[in-house]
């Protein structure tokens, strides 16, 4: 392996290597016209070579940027490598961004080329082209709807390949020379962070940082060329770049692209991946769907399900981690596997999963244990764009739901005086593009990166993250206030989708809550309660009662933990609309943009910190097509019971 590391220090070199040693093994699949089409490593190498030559012939040079906009498609992944062959830098962007967001990224990155998936993305680019003087060429993959577009800067993918083949017949040595001329210290990719605060920043990574990190983790987890991955998360997100690109090249496994974004669940089921990544949200949604469907199942099935799930809860995790479990329990678990766990995993498309990761947000302990108890080796990791993902990974056999594990191979971690997590290792990013101030703020001269997260190590040396360091504040009486910690506790209730907690420099803690439309809607349907919209459902007194019970339960949990007992939720309200990325309230990766929300809804916050029972609000909403509308509502504000500090244990006993 070590010689391979030295010789194959860039992704194009690695592709060439794979095309030699595992030429006939599948490298990529895509479901097209109802059938899975596959490309072997040798075919991918040939196609990428033509593509790279075509890009060069069209004028793309070393150091130029090429933006990539679209869903997960093989040709978009090949754009990454083809650009890297000639030393150009790929810049994947989020496919669901509106035109202005794309314009910002392309303008900042000075993109000269752009590869768009289809007409929808091409339209966005053409719409913004006047503001992007540097953008010279737009390529597209799917020509549907583009027949009447006759702009000279538009190029069909096939035409580029054709140009590349011509170029290669005239310059047969070109590709080899390009590939050999690059080294691991060259820039590999630029990934724009989703921008929880302010404008997105372009994180620049070298081949070394992405490749070594991807390879380290693949070796740690024993990934090999027989593994299967479904690429369905945004290409602009660092995780997808590592799981569906970097590790595929490093370990030689095949990556499959779904037919469309609507068919992901079905494609997952058909494919049966062995290595699977999903943010906690997806695991939550899957579990909610399962539970809702179980409610509709027959009595016998329901009893069987609950009987065996209770058993799995008791011994499933121990069996997965290889701890000793009694023979009778093992037999019963085996029977459960046959009758319940096996069919359930199959229905979810997870029966072959050897390794599952989740990250990005905290996952509810019950959800996490649910998947582990039915035999899915789900693990949490902690990572960031600046680290090329891996900072910590939960170790096999030592998994605790509330920690993110131990440092990944070659990564070192230390904590600052303020409790902020710092790391260093092979995956540390090179810089923020054209932003030396931010680079200097985040990365020290000796290569330590400040994550901005507050955390601490537990007794076993596993890292526990509590919140963003800058979000951790204090109530007026000096009590520690970690909003995310409180929010996550509430979000673990299936009825609650999103929470924003307030309390820094205030007298007490208060919260905005979004209910989960699917879960609460289903409850309403089963109980014959009519509602016409999210707004109406969220204003029903019965719904308020349920959420109030959840808030009070959370307060009870908080009261038992010394560090956060003081920050129980005194008042809350249910928002009249879902927080939405289109309205700028969430990032594209669905993280809450706290400051923006605080400004936008300042009227509501003031009401939370008064003794008002109601508050009127008018909000502007943006629809997916960019049109705007107004939404007005009169929101009820409720008081929640809190538990006196120190009385928590007593209250628990009393129940």
């Amino acid at each position, binding site marked *: 392996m070590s010689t391979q590391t030295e010789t194959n220090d860039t992704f194009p070199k690695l592709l060439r290597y794979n095309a030699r040693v595992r030429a006939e093994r599948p490298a990529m699949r895509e479901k097209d*016209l*109802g*059938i899975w089409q596959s490309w072997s490593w040798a075919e991918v190498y040939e196609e990428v070579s033509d593509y790279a030559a075509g890009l060069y012939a069209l004028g793309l040079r070393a150091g130029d940027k090429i933006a990539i906009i679209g869903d997960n498609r093989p040709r978009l992944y090949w754009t990454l490598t083809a650009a890297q062959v000639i030393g150009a830098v790929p810049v994947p962007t989020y496919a669901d961004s509106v035109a202005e967001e794309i314009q910002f990224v392309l303008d900042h990155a000075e993109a000269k080329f752009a590869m768009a998936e289809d007409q929808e993305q091409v339209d966005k680019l053409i719409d913004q082209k006047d503001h992007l003087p540097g953008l010279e060429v737009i390529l597209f993959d799917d020509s*549907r*709807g583009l027949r009447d577009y006759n702009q000279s800067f538009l190029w069909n993918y096939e035409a580029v390949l054709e140009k590349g083949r011509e170029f290669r017949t005239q310059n047969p040595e070109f590709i080899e020379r390009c590939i050999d001329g690059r080294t691991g210290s060259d820039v590999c990719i630029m990934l724009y962070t989703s921008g929880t605060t302010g404008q997105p920043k372009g994180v620049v990574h070298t081949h070394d940082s992405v490749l070594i990190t991807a390879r380290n983790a693949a070796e740690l987890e024993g990934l090999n060329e027989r593994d299967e991955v479904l690429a369905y998360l945004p290409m602009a997100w660092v995780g997808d770049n590592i799981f569906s690109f970097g590790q595929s090249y490093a370990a030689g496994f095949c990556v499959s692209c779904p037919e469309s974004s*609507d*068919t992901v669940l079905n494609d997952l089921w058909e494919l049966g991946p062995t290595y699977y990544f999903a943010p906690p949200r997806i695991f939550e949604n899957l579990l909610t769907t399962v539970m809702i469907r179980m409610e509709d199942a027959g009595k016998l099935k329901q009893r069987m399900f609950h009987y065996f799930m209770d058993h799995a809860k008791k011994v499933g995790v121990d069996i997965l981690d290889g701890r000793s479990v009694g023979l009778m329990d093992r037999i019963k678990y085996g029977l459960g596997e046959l009758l319940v766990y096996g069919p359930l995993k199959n229905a979810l498309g997870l029966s072959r999963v050897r390794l599952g990761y989740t990250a990005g947000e905290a996952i509810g302990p019950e959800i996490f244990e649910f998947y582990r108890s039915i035999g899915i080796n789900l693990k949490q990791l902690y990572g960031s764009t600046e680290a090329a993902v891996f900072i910590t990974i939960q170790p096999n056999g030592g998994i605790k739901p509330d920690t993110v594990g131990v440092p990944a191979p070659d990564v070192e971690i230390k904590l600052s005086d303020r409790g902020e997590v710092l790391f260093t290792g092979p995956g540390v990013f090179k810089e923020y593009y054209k932003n030396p101030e931010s680079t200097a703020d985040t990365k020290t001269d000796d290569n330590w990166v400040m994550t901005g997260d507050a955390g601490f190590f537990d007794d076993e040396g596993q890292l526990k993250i509590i919140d963003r360091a800058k979000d951790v504040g204090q109530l007026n009486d000096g009590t520690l206030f970690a909003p995310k910690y409180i929010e996550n506790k509430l979000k673990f209730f299936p009825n609650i989708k999103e929470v924003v907690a307030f309390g820094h420099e205030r007298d007490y803690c208060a919260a905005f809550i979004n209910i989960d439309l699917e879960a609460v809607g289903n409850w309403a349907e089963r109980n014959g309660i009519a509602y016409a919209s999210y707004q109406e459902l969220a204003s029903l007194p019965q719904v308020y009662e349920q959420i109030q019970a959840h808030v009070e339960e959370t307060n009870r949990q908080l009261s038992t933990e010394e560090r956060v007992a003081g920050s129980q939720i005194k008042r809350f309200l249910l928002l009249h609309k879902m927080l939405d990325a289109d309205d700028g309230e969430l990032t594209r990766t669905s993280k809450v943009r706290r400051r923006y929300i605080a400004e936008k809804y300042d009227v509501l916050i003031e009401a939370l910190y008064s003794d008002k029972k109601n508050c009127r609000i008018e909000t502007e909403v943006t629809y997916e097509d960019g049109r705007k509308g107004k939404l007005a509502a009169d929101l009820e504000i409720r008081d929640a019971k809190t538990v006196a500090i120190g009385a928590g244990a007593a209250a628990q006993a009393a129940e």
Partner: protein
Amino acid sequence: MSEMMADNENGRIGGELLSVDNITLRFGGVKALTDISFNINKGEIRSIIGPNGAGKSSMLNVINGFYKPQEGTIRFKGKNVNMKPDLAAKSGIARTFQNIALFKGMSTLDNIMTGRMLKMKAGFLSQAIYWGRAQKEELENRAFVEEIIDFLEIQSIRKTPVGRLPYGLQKRVELARALAMEPELLLLDEPMAGMNLEEKEDMSRYIIDVNEYFGTTIALIEHDMGVVMDLSDRVVVLDYGCKLADGSPDEVSSNQAVIDAYLGVAH
């Protein structure tokens, strides 16, 4: 898909494909259509509009031979024809219905496959055991159906029973089934009835795409005036079974008789 796309770069609209001449249709004493004449040219989108009960659906039913007019003739591709539904289907006229007429218990895929029935020549027995010619035909036809599924973006409901789909999607499946016949003339009976704005926009897009890429001639009945005026090349207006106007969307919408019929006028 490229081989299926008709070359319509220049001169999308060709010569006459179908003409109805002096059609009169009576149900007992009730005159549903009185002396109607108009034609449909190759490659155009032709709309038939009118208030409720104007005779629009009757007109469509006459064209595909479901109703037999007492007077008048229909010429299709230059020949006088005595139109019947099965003959219409064989000669390249496909249609969708105002009230969806799909097989509710069958999957989307199977429903669309029924649109290919006329293209399959294998005997019942070899089809039943999926052997020889039947297998080859099935594969060819399935490949074509997959092109349509891709075209109308209904991959995610390929295996879903149609009865479980929302209304807007059922309409799309019905269009898919009609397209599976590779029709020369496609009759759409209120393709957008009961849809919300977004579904209407999607459907309009598909109708234009079908017309552009497959070169299919489309005759369309629709209530939504905005949609009709945007999509159509020519519009014919009916009222109480008589032809009020015929011409481009602009001409028709400025015609005083049409305005009166739609807005009502003191008699």
